[in-house]
């Protein structure tokens, strides 16, 4: 691990030992959050005792690690016991989670501390983080543009320096797109690499828990702790040790993989994004990578297929929210239980969620399922084949995270429908199950532009290695006003 990263880690780890530092940090986070609204919940003081515990004393002791003492926030659709689990929704506004997600528990056992819950688009549905019952998330680079979504809160918390890393969820790009909109790193792991137990399901066959981090090496360290089969998630996968490292050309730090770029599928890029892509390509070449052209002919069908599958699964996943067993019960109940269910759901869900539930219900209906749902799942097979075929000619794929820079908040930006249309670049990896890492490339007109690399299943290692090398050679610019540990630590020489 390089010196810069080590220094940063030491800084954060000092929070455990230094109550005064912790207090100053907490104050600064609150101030930042008042402006950015990245966190729905932040109260490290009420859990003061967790800082006193030695690292890894939760359940099974772990030896001190890279993650010892690091604070992190968790997107509010991932369960942490005794924290809220609002999912950005009125319906779950007062829900306290009785259990902790497996992935979070593993990080806690490794010595990291949950300090807050991050804001999000309601139930993970959105690309802006403007669809929250708790108000929109503000982008620290420019309050006039969106933070991206749905893990906007997680991305902003890291970008603004509140915490070094955060957990989010990525169903169609919800970790990667906000990470790129906020100038930080966002990992979407291989489907099945990280347990989903504790992630409130939006689309079960597309969802993964992802990582937002301020550096590639930290993202790697977090991933290594979180990953692994879980008996409580039967869609999780056990990987025999041989495959945990991609092997081959990654064995040496100077290895230079071949990177494929699906140029013919990227016809609609905003000039700033096209420029960033070219810049990224030249940097890769500079560190010794060869770049080749690959085909991704099915890219134009990715977004519609994604939305059919996602809304269909969501319509079933959100059916459980009826106010009966937990959550906000409609108070205007007279008469039958049916009224309670209708009332709770109709008052509890926002417009975007309702729209998606209705679309999803429709595409599963008898008579419609074949032309919508079945067809989308077949397109999914073709997309996966396409990606696998492309990865036969190279070790990594490079493509933009998003075709346009962070768009404006409200009118003047992309409307809901347009936002769906441009999700294709991130949705690919969700449909196919491949891992992808979004990383910062450049700043254009004061706004961050990021790119993403995709790798074969379970080859996340490759992503971190290349992104790490790029990071060391071309350090990433921090968001304006971002907090750093250096700010908080009094000059000691």
């Amino acid at each position, binding site marked *: 691990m390089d010196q810069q990263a080590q220094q940063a880690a030491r800084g954060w780890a000092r929070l455990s030992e230094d109550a005064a530092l912790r207090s100053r940090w907490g104050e600064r986070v609150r101030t930042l959050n008042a402006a950015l609204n990245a966190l729905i919940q932040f109260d490290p003081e009420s859990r003061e005792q967790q800082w006193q515990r030695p690292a890894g004393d939760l359940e099974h002791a772990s030896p001190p690690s890279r993650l010892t003492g690091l604070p992190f926030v968790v997107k509010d659709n991932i369960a942490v*016991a*005794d924290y809220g689990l609002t999912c950005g929704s009125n319906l779950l506004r007062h829900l306290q989670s009785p*259990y902790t997600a497996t992935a979070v528990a593993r990080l806690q056992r490794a010595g990291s501390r949950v300090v807050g819950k991050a804001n999000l688009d309601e139930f993970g549905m959105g690309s802006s983080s403007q669809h929250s019952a708790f108000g929109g998330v503000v982008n620290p680079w420019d309050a006039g543009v969106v933070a991206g979504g749905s893990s906007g809160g997680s991305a902003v918390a890291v970008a603004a320096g509140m915490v070094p890393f955060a957990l989010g969820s990525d169903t169609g790009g919800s970790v990667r797109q906000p990470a790129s909109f906020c100038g930080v790193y966002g990992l979407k792991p291989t*489907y*099945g690499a990280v347990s989903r137990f504790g992630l409130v399901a939006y689309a079960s*066959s597309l969802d993964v828990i992802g990582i937002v981090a301020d550096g590639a090496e930290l993202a790697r360290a977090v991933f290594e702790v979180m990953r692994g*089969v879980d*008996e409580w998630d*039967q*869609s999780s*996968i*056990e990987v025999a040790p041989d*495959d945990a490292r991609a092997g081959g050309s990654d064995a040496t730090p100077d290895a230079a993989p071949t990177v494929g770029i699906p140029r013919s599928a990227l016809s*609609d*890029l*905003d000039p700033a994004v096209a420029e960033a892509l070219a810049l990224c390509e030249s940097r890769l070449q500079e560190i010794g990578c060869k770049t080749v052209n690959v085909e991704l002919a099915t890219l134009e*069908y990715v977004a*519609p*297929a994604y*939305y*059919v599958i996602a809304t269909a699964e969501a319509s079933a996943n959100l*059916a459980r929210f009826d*106010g*009966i*067993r937990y959550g906000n*019960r409609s108070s205007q109940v*007279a*008469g*039958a*239980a*049916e*009224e*309670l269910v*209708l*009332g709770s*759901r109709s008052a509890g869900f926002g*417009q975007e969620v*309702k729209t998606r*539930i*209705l*679309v999803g219900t*429709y595409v599963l*209906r008898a008579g419609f399922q074949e032309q919508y749902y*079945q067809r*989308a799942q*077949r*397109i999914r*097979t*073709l997309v996966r084949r396409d990606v696998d075929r492309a990865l036969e000619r190279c070790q990594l794929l490079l493509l933009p995270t998003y*075709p*346009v820079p962070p768009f404006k908040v409200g009118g003047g930006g*992309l*409307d809901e*429908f*347009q936002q*769906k*249309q*441009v999700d294709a670049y991130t949705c690919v990896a969700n*449909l*196919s199950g491949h891992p992808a890492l979004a990383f910062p490339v450049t700043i254009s007109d004061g706004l961050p532009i990021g790119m993403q690399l995709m790798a074969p299943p379970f080859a996340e290692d490759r992503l971190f290695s290349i992104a790490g090398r790029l990071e060391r050679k071309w350090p990433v610019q921090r968001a304006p006003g971002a907090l750093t540990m250096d700010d908080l630590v009094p000059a000691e020489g």
Partner: protein
Amino acid sequence: MLTENLTTATDSSNRSNRADGRAVSLTDVELTTTAEMARLRLADGERSSLRAAIEQILGYFDQMQDIDVSEVEPTSHPAVTASNPRLHPAPLRQDRAVDSAARWRSAETGALVQRATETEEGFIITPHVF
């Protein structure tokens, strides 16, 4: 440029973003039936905007008809372990019971059932179900 090619929500004459402008229209009955299936009550004020949004999205889905999918099977589960000998699915769960009272009624996590808004003698209550 992409943003110029995108269909806007306000552009009602262009319901799908296909060149031939094939539109999908959702009848009142279909919307009501779908909403009933999803247990969503649509207020008068939101009916038309929801309908418009849904129609636009369904129209967009029509693009999927252009590609030939006759030779392929649907993918319901993206993680494929069969083709790679180093990948194994999670093992099936052993049949061991965990005492719920001990696990979920501790002072720390609170009684699960008490989170429901209305309970009585351990039962969760709703208005009469017909």
